[in-house]
């Protein structure tokens, strides 16, 4: 029976590590999976050496106070090639619109942007962060959610020296003032 339990545990640990963006402490995993921390730690080590042994494309390493999956060094050149050649230089329409919302509403939380755009913006925010066009700066005192602002690079790309140079939205949208003031107080 132990083997089966371990397999489920291993799968669960793997699945969680797969989706997280930051290193996860063993204690967090233990709590989430309702098992002893020592057992989780054991699993993590076992996983890490299994990846080594199977020579997988990724590795599991302790990072900071937790554990995180990384691509294996050995394949870095392929990954780099994908990143360089496979990625679009141009932003998608969704990314551009999200960037526009951040630019005009900054500092703004992800959930606010999501509410304005009517769709989840996690993916695009990540893209904008990795492209250096937005940055996280502080957090919302009420919700604790991270606040996003545009960066110097963003200004540079638009040829502006400050956000205040962005054109006024009002003439573009007769009702925009009421809309903005309205939805700034949700």
């Amino acid at each position, binding site marked *: 029976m132990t083997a089966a339990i371990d397999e489920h545990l291993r799968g669960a640990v793997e*699945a969680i590590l*797969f*989706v*997280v*963006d930051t290193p996860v402490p063993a204690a967090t995993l233990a709590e989430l999976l309702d098992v002893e921390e020592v057992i989780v730690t054991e699993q993590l080590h076992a996983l890490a050496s299994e990846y080594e042994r199977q020579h997988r494309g990724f590795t599991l390493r302790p990072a900071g106070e937790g554990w995180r999956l*990384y*691509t294996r060094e050995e394949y*870095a050149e392929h*990954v*780099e090639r994908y*990143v*360089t050649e496979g*990625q679009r*230089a*141009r*932003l998608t329409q969704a990314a*551009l*619109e*999200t*960037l*526009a*919302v951040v*630019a*005009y*509403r900054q500092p703004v939380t992800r959930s606010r942007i999501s509410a*304005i*755009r*009517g769709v989840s913006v*996690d*993916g695009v925010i*990540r893209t904008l*962060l*990795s*492209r*250096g*066009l937005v940055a996280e700066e502080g957090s919302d005192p009420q919700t604790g959610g991270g606040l996003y602002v545009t960066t110097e690079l963003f200004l540079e*790309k*638009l*040829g*502006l020296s400050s956000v205040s*140079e*962005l*054109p006024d*939205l009002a003439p*573009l*949208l007769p*009702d*925009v003032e009421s*809309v*903005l003031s309205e*939805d700034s107080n949700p």
Partner: protein
Amino acid sequence: MDEAGGSGTASDIGVAPGDGRFHVTLTNFEGPFDLLLSLISKHKLDVTEIALSQVTDEFINYIEAAGDSLDLGQATEFVVVAATLLDLKAARLLPSADVEDEDDLAALEARDLLFARLLAYRAFREAADFLRAHELDQSRRFSREVSLEPRFAGALPDVLLGVGVEAFAALAAKAVQPQVPVEVSTSHLHVPRVSVREHAGILRQRLAGGATTSFRSLTSDCSTTLEVVARFLALLDLHTRGSVSLEQLTALGELHVRWTAAKEDADPEAGQVWDDQEQPDGPDATQAQVVGDDGRQPRPA
């Protein structure tokens, strides 16, 4: 049939405590086919012509009970289906007769088409069930969506915004604007609502005294042409029912109206013809008649 497939359930139906009238939330049904399939599955029937004729009464009760909650577009769809169903039911009740004229043929065709459309709709609904199952599975799988490892972030090609400042501002304006459904406004087509039924009531009240009155004086208080039209339509309706007599001595001359039915004849059916139709026009009147004259009172299912 998968009962959960229907978006309406029995809990949508109930008797309102106040007026004892039977109320139904038809908006929970995505159109007449959805309602029909729900009714058929409620009775655990398979989709056959017999099943259609069996649920006809209930279908019609739903429409009657839906009343004002349907807009004209929806109502038309429901009424067309109801008319065909009634036809189908009538054909099943009557001893089978040979097809005698073109009207019968047309009715048969309409019936076949309704049947075929219902089956087609059911097929797509089952396909939708397939999609739902897949969606459910897929919603339990999560793709890896994490930031690029720092060492690869540097390898990203230089990003292009691809727009200038003005276009960017326009995008922002569009993005922060509340999502208003893009629709061609038809508000200009809706001159104030006029109820023919209401005007029939006014006419009954004024004419019941018995004296002959001119149409001109009967409409002297109307402020819009539409009201005059509504009053005229109501008058024609009263005439068809034999409640008034009309007399016009010369073409385009004065129209004289006289109440001929019993004085106290409130004629409760009179309003049924139009039954709160807001657009008094020919075809709708005919279809409403089909339903109204059926004379069935809504009853709880």
